[in-house]
């Protein structure tokens, strides 16, 4: 009997496909964070003021904070089920670099929970009277920023996956780390409204994305090895 060897690329694809398939079968976990995002964004006009003038000032921040909270809520499902049914252990035992496996899981997770939020953001922006000229900026910054949120959140989830109740601890660990993304994202939108150039902000967000793609999965992988043992 010969042993079949798979390449890292194949393993990456298999992990990605598996996670997407699981999400497709358990639609709840996909829909809930998304609905949470919509509801949180709806609470701000009710809690602060329904006046368009006031709303347009805070709209970018509201969208970013709602995205951040929704991504935090969605993070929970990233390694949880796999940890419970033991498939996470198999992933750690697999002869492939854990870095790419983690990256595949993060990518799948972002496609399921991050991308829908990004896609619907112009609509919510419109409802919050965000000035029309900044829709494009908001969209692009969310597109660059949400993967960073997922990648950073993944470290927190990996560290706490073995804990029984870890909702709050995850928030305490993850939220302060997301501040730079939040700052860059909201400032970029502000910058568009002032009519200034965006290049610097987009470059910084791109740098954050590249840095977190290359470094965060390493930390997540190390954290998973600690938590599972």
């Amino acid at each position, binding site marked *: 009997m010969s042993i079949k060897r798979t390449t890292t690329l194949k393993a990456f694809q298999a992990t990605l496909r598996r996670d997407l398939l699981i999400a497709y079968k358990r639609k709840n976990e996909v829909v809930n964070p998304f609905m949470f995002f919509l509801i949180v964004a709806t609470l701000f006009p009710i809690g602060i003021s329904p006046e368009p003038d006031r709303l347009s000032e805070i709209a970018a921040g509201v969208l970013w904070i709602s995205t951040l909270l929704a991504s935090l809520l969605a993070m929970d499902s990233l390694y949880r089920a796999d940890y419970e049914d033991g498939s996470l252990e198999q992933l750690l035992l697999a002869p492939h670099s854990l870095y790419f496996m983690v990256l595949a899981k993060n990518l799948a997770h972002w496609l399921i929970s991050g991308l829908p939020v990004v896609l619907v953001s112009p609509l919510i922006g419109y409802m919050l009277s965000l000035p029309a000229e900044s829709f494009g900026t908001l969209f692009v910054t969310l597109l660059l920023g949400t993967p960073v949120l997922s990648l950073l959140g993944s470290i927190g989830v990996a560290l*706490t996956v073995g804990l029984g109740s870890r909702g709050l601890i995850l928030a*305490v*660990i993850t939220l*302060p780390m997301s501040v730079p993304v939040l700052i860059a994202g909201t400032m970029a939108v502000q910058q568009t409204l002032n009519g200034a150039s965006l290049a610097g902000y987009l470059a910084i967000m791109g740098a*954050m994305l590249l840095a977190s793609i290359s470094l965060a999965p390493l*930390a997540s992988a190390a954290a998973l090895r600690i938590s599972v043992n």
Partner: protein
Amino acid sequence: MWLWFSKLGSPKWFYELSGKWLPWLIGPMALLLIVGIIWALLFVPPDYQQGNTIRIMYIHVPFASISLAFFPLMALAGTITLVWRMKLADIVAKTAAPLGAWFTALALASGSIWGSDIWGTWWIWDGRLTSMLLQFFLLIGVISLRSALEDAEAAAKACAVLSIVGCINVIVIKYSVDWWNTLHQPSSPFSLSNEAPNPPEVWIPLVIMIFAVYLFFAVSLILSMRNEILVRERRSEWVQQLVQAT
């Protein structure tokens, strides 16, 4: 060299050695604290703009400057824990986190009292204040992760990873927040000349206070490390002999 290195990792050896060091640290600390505080409170001339409020600086600046050292220290200790599994490094990491939270909180509180007089407000969302506050939250995160994980070895490694990630993050937060909004005055240069913005009679007591607070930090760290060593080694023979002897 390796013998020295493995010795350094032994809690018992550290406990004995630090017992000998402590008087040599506590003595200068007390001396510097007394000299520094009396000098700063009674003999420094009032500032021409800030009056007597300037004396808060002698507490605030030392605490703020040492607060910045905690994440690098914890990240270093965490790296040593992960790479060499040195017991002592984890003891440093574990005891440094609550101390760091206290020092950061004191830096924030003293700064806030100073600001209430100079800026006319207790809190503003200024770059330095915000990054200190976020550092405080990150330290609380490390502490709560440590207390949530029951297995001591897993907790040590998990906190090591979080400290390293946190250390990188604190730097990114610092720059991004500064760039976001800054009102806080930049650090002023020290100079011996009398025409400089800070004449020697203002900064010499500040330097004394900075050394005093650094020694205070060293003493607090060593004391809580000794405590932690006794707790961890409570089943070992030497600790039980120590307890019976007292």
